[in-house]
């Protein structure tokens, strides 16, 4: 499963957002993920993907595709 697919399912499982509503190229807010929810999502990603998402990602990353690209570029934690 691609990182993007995994993220989509994570958002669905964690927040109950319909998978069909998640547009990887639209802002998070377009499917009702506000800044607090994105912060919570980043926290979950660290555990789910064994990475450390940098703090600034919460403000610089605005779409799911950007987030997937960022995660794919991060080193996996031991």
């Amino acid at each position, binding site marked *: 499963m691609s990182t993007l697919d995994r993220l989509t399912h994570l958002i669905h499982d964690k927040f*109950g957002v319909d998978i069909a509503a998640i547009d990887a190229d639209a802002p998070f807010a377009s499917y*009702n*993920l506000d800044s*607090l*929810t994105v*912060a*919570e999502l980043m*926290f979950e990603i*660290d555990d789910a993907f064994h990475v450390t998402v940098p703090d600034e990602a919460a403000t610089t990353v605005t779409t799911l595709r950007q987030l997937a690209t960022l995660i794919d570029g991060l080193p996996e934690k031991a």
Partner: protein
Amino acid sequence: MATSRIGIAGIGVTSPLGDSLQESWERLVAGRSAVGRMSFDGLPDIAAAQVTSDVSQVLTRLQQVGTERVSQMALGAVRKALADARLSAWPDPERVGLYLGTGMGGAATMDAGFGALYGGGRIPPLTVPAGMVNGASAVVAIHADIRGPVLTYAVACASGSVAMAEAAHALRRGEVDIAICGGVEAPLARGTVAAWHALRTLAPPDEGNVSQSCRPFAANRAGLVLGEGAAFFVLRREEDLPDAPRAWFAGSAVRCDALHLTNPQVRGQVSTLKAALAATGLAPADIGYCNAHGTATVAGDPVECEALRDVWGEHAAALRVSSTKAAHGHLLGAGGALEAALTVAALQAGVVPATLGVATLDARCAGVGHVLGEAQRAPGLRHAISNSFAFGGTNAALVFSRA
């Protein structure tokens, strides 16, 4: 405005005794306690009264982000109170106020966050908004569209009662047209329970009958039993009430002992009770029932009974008194609100609930009309008082009158 009576238009309850005032009341007068056994890592088992329904259902999973049990219970009870008052929307949300009492706010969130941090893990990013003491108020305001004063009262075990007293004052002053008020508490988390246990105030689970671990006024009482839940009221001025109210909020008083952090004192309780009566223009003999603070601590119960004897004087023996905490536990910041709701139910039913679990009354608690064993019919009951005496010395007494 000053002469308006304040009516109770609706009540919503989520308590260990049930998911509505009616259900809680019926279980109470049937003599069934909600106290059970609870286990936490590293602690001896405790007796506690839990809400057993899934309180998270009031919000979608997306809406639950940044909320916790205390805010979910508050919102659920507020929605029930609004439904009871047949209110679903209001023309001017800025004329609606929320007066919410909670002693410990999002204690479980802080507990879990600090636990993770001290264990070498990471503290979740929403620990502050979910755990802050006014988090529940914010969640209620957002989802009920309350845009007037949204205030949180942290006055330990008097929080809910103080919030209600302040709400009624705000209505009398004309600051709001609808006052939603009450209390909520969700203290049954490991660290919070451990802190209460460390203070040596908790009753151990009664090995013979865990449901009777909380025994207010009994010679063998062994301490308080923690509970959780929420109770909220919709208050309105008489001229704004669309229907007959459940009861009248006749008056209240708030005073402080100013003597000790935790030990209750007769002086402050007497002044509170006298001030509450003075606020309503009622005489001691007019009050037919007292829902006592009655936590079942060794120190607290005799002090409260002495204060009642002092204020009621020759009428003390005729004053029916019970502590419903035996059945629903001590809900801390929500305790006064739940007990106020049960006091209103008593006025409506003309029935006075009993203190459960008392085999032998402590002689130091004698001299008032304890209702023990079974609920009593009281068809002539017109006025009742509910006491909340908090750690920190703040005392509140609320007086209600039959509609």
